[in-house]
């Protein structure tokens, strides 16, 4: 038995564990070992969602928790369909969880206007309620309580009060109270479960009411191209099915334009145009759409989007229905069914084949009828196992084909009646009876969003949201943005199996994220006008990864992350480093506070993907100190390494006019190359001190600095700009494209990594790719990345000068540590490591590790 417990009442009353209603509900969840329990919580009260979830988890009951977000109550007084619409949405949401029994727990003194609790206004399901400790305080919900099939009182006094004040039927009531006030709710819970079982047994499955208009026979719109008439050789199957369905339905034929020069065939049924059908659709009880792969059906997808109905699928691939006039049309169609993957791989020309662009048709259909199991196989092959599972596979040649089709259509209609389509239909009916301005009221916007969230449209794949908020606004060409672009490019072309990668962004101005569709299309070279940026549609099982670093923005989206988590979306962040916290003196005054606030939000969520094990270790230390409860709660800590191939990282291009001369000079002697923005922690001042002492001792080595000026480096910048060795033994190249950098790596003798702290150290692996030897400060992260393939130095300028001398000596004897054998990843491999570190649940996932270790995924 599947018990869906609506816990909204106890959830809202603080100290919920102390009320009897809460105690009984919790005890039922704990005692229902042989049953499946789902807990429903009200997402508007986010703090209490977490509290209630934790409470049930601590009981060991472990029910599945579903959080829903009811629309706010309407602000306007007067007659309105809105309050009833909220109640119907509540019932539709509970019904969507497929309960055998719905059990609603009320709390004492529950505000009447808040919870749209409802029984028997829309969906029919066996329903029981747990009365509040003081039942008369639930008067506002008396109507719902009276309609329930069973009610539980948590004390004899409460039972008596319920009978006296709420006018309940005594025969439906049960006492579920501990004996002698013992406070042990396990026995009452067992009695209650026995009661629920008996209610389930007694509940005769009732078919949802069919809304049949104007007579005993349902009216059907048969939407198909002409000709279709009995005996017509061109469409014998369709004609005979039509004749058989006509035994059950009053049928109107709806058709697109009749080919010019042809007359509509004589027909036993009225022939209607598509325009007529649009205006009269609500007069029909059933709509049957025929769909084949020819232009004659081209109008059907748009019609199906407006007017729900059952699809009879004659062909699987519907590419002829996709408007092919412009690239934007093709992009839009491909994206809807497959995301960016087919677009990202076809920069030179966007082709539809082999990708079938039919998902929207399947998603919008109330049901799909096919005449071959092959169509189901194809649907599952392209869109996953859940697609096609509910389709009706019928034998068109069977003697009872007509009856089979009627049963399938009625089955689909019955399911739709208590789902999204039926709800919209029912509410529209209520609206049409309410005051004229009602449907234009602003609360209906929120209602539409709440309905879409509660009863989500199917998606062809789960979504992997990648936060690119910074990149959408500007490409400041930092190392982090290079990482974002490199990973994004690979992920868009090669998403994890079963997922579609969706770049998303937020702004300071409003709560919530939007799809970065225009940015993404531009990023992969597709026409940007094909898609719009809209707010996210969240689904259980989606995953969000904060890939871009936006420490100011993320805390402002804190509530949205919580909403995502409550909606069943896993939320994780890429952590590049903790440097503003660990090296506070090297950053501006507020950087540590900003970074700490950002880390606090990261810690509230589900996990972090660190760009090195060293960062993962630092983060673990930080969590142990600042948020140990998150570690105890299973916060995921994973690490992956970055890629080294600049040419596959959406590189910037361009060389300055003096590039050839500079490169020749760099290549002509011993040149030590420092790569990265000039900022305090990078060690430029230390390097300059060391090289000045070397130069004064007659050492001819050059120091080449590639990177623009950052913050808090005015002194060292002045020193470098005015240095007497500038252009001789000191070079500062402030504007270096990726293309130029590649050539500098090739020309230099050694990479100098003097930084006091790094999250990873991209220049190390980029050097290794160019077989450029490495002289690095002895940091854990550099040891992790370069291992024995570099020479290391400790702390001071004197130590660095000595290390440079040592390196030059070793180099002369060809005894310096070469970087040739240093392992590094390409961006493609890095993206693979990133995907493995995410450990996305998927069918037959061999990459899912059981040990939960935080080892770099590519090393495991």
């Amino acid at each position, binding site marked *: 038995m599947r018990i869906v417990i609506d816990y909204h009442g106890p959830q809202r009353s603080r100290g919920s564990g102390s009320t009897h209603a809460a105690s009984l509900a919790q005890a039922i969840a704990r005692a229902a070992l042989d049953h499946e329990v789902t807990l429903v919580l009200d997402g*508007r009260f986010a703090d209490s969602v977490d509290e209630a979830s934790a409470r049930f988890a601590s009981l060991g009951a472990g029910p599945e928790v579903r959080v829903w977000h009811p629309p706010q109550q309407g602000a306007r007084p007067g007659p309105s369909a809105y309050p009833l619409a909220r109640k119907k949405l509540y019932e539709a949401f509970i019904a969507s969880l497929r309960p055998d029994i719905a059990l609603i727990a009320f709390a004492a003194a529950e505000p009447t206007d808040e919870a749209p609790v409802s029984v028997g206004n829309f969906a029919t399901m066996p329903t029981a309620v747990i009365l509040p400790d003081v039942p008369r305080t639930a008067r506002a919900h008396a109507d719902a309580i009276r309609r329930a099939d069973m009610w539980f009182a948590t004390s004899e006094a409460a039972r008596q009060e319920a009978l006296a004040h709420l006018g309940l039927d005594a025969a439906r009531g049960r006492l579920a109270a501990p004996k002698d006030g013992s406070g042990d709710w396990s026995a009452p819970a067992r009695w209650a479960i026995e009661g629920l079982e008996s209610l389930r047994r007694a509940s005769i499955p009732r078919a949802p009411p069919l809304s049949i208009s104007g007579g005993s026979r349902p009216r059907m719109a048969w939407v198909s191209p002409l000709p279709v008439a009995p005996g017509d050789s061109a469409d014998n199957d369709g004609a005979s099915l039509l004749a058989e369905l006509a035994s059950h339905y009053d049928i109107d034929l709806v058709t697109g334009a009749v080919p010019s020069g042809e007359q509509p065939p004589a027909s036993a049924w009225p022939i209607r145009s598509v325009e007529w059908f649009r205006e*009269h659709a609500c007069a029909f009880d059933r709509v049957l759409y025929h769909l084949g792969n020819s232009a004659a059906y081209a109008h059907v997808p748009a019609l199906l989007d407006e007017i729900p109905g059952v699809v009879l699928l004659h062909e699987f691939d519907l590419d002829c229905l996709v408007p092919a006039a412009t690239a934007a049309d093709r992009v839009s169609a491909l994206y809807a069914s497959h995301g960016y993957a087919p677009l990202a791989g076809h920069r030179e020309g966007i082709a539809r084949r082999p990708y079938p662009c039919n998902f929207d048709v399947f998603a919008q259909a109330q049901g799909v009828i096919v005449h071959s199991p092959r169509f189901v196989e194809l649907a599952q092959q392209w869109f996953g196992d859940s697609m096609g599972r509910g389709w009706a596979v019928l034998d068109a040649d069977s003697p009872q084909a007509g009856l089979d089709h009627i049963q399938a259509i009625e089955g689909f209609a019955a399911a739709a009646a208590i789902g*999204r389509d039926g709800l919209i239909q029912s509410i*529209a009916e209520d609206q*049409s009876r309410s005051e004229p301005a009602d449907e234009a009221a602003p609360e209906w916007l929120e209602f*539409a969003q709440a309905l879409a969230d509660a009863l989500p449209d199917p998606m062809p794949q789960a979504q992997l949201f990648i936060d690119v908020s910074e990149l959408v606004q500007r490409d400041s060409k930092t190392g982090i943005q290079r990482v974002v672009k490199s990973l994004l490019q690979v992920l868009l072309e090669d998403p994890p199996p079963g997922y579609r990668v969706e770049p998303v962004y937020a702004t300071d101005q409003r709560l919530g994220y939007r799809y970065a569709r225009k940015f993404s299309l531009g990023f992969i070279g597709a026409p940007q006008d094909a898609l719009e940026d*809209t707010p996210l549609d969240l689904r259980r099982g989606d995953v969000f990864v904060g890939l871009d670093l936006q420490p100011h923005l993320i805390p402002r989206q804190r509530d949205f992350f919580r909403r995502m988590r409550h909606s069943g979306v896993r939320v994780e962040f890429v952590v590049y480093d903790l440097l503003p916290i660990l090296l506070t003196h090297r950053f501006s005054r507020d950087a540590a506070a900003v970074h700490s606030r950002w880390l606090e939000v990261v810690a509230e969520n589900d996990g972090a993907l660190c760009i090195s094990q060293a960062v993962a270790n630092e983060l673990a230390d930080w969590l142990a100190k600042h948020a140990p409860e998150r570690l105890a709660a299973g916060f995921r800590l994973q690490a992956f390494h970055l890629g080294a191939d600049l040419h596959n990282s959406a590189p910037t291009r361009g060389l300055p006019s003096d590039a050839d001369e500079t490169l020749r000079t760099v290549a002509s002697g011993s040149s030590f190359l420092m790569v990265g923005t000039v900022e305090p922690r990078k060690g430029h001042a230390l390097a300059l001190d060391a090289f000045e002492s070397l130069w004064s001792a007659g050492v001819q080595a050059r120091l080449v600095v590639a990177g623009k000026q950052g913050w808090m480096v005015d002194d060292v910048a002045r020193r470098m700009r005015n240095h007497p060795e500038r252009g001789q033994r000191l070079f500062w190249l402030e504007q270096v494209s990726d293309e130029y950098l590649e050539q500098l790596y090739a020309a230099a003798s050694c990479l100098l990594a003097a930084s006091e702290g790094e999250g990873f150290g991209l220049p190390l692996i980029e050097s290794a790719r160019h077989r450029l030897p490495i002289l690095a400060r002895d940091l854990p992260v550099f040891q992790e990345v370069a291992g024995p393939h570099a020479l290391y130095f400790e702390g001071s300028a004197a130590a660095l000068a000595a290390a440079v001398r040592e390196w030059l000596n070793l180099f002369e004897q060809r005894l310096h540590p070469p970087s040739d054998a240093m392992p590094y990843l390409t961006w493609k491999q890095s993206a693979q490591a990133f995907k493995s570190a995410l450990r996305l649940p998927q069918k037959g996932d061999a990459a899912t590790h059981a040990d939960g270790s935080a080892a770099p995924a590519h090393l495991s």
Partner: protein
Amino acid sequence: MSFAQTLRQALVGQVKRILGGTARLAARQPLLRRGAKRLLQAVPALQPRVARLVGASSLRLTSASDLSTSAQRVHRRLRRQQACRKAHR
């Protein structure tokens, strides 16, 4: 961050702290709750924190373009069906 931004953030922070206390009370009192909701509409910058406490939606929806793709479809269908039904009454 500019001086103006810093000042604005500090001011909003102060007001939030004051109203945070009010909102915690409001969360338990229907009358105060209604007042807090009106305040939210008047001062959008207070939305996330206060909204969380009083259980109001902090996702402000003012036009159909604020809706997700799926909700836009719901909204479209609702309006279309409502118009059709009105025409057939």
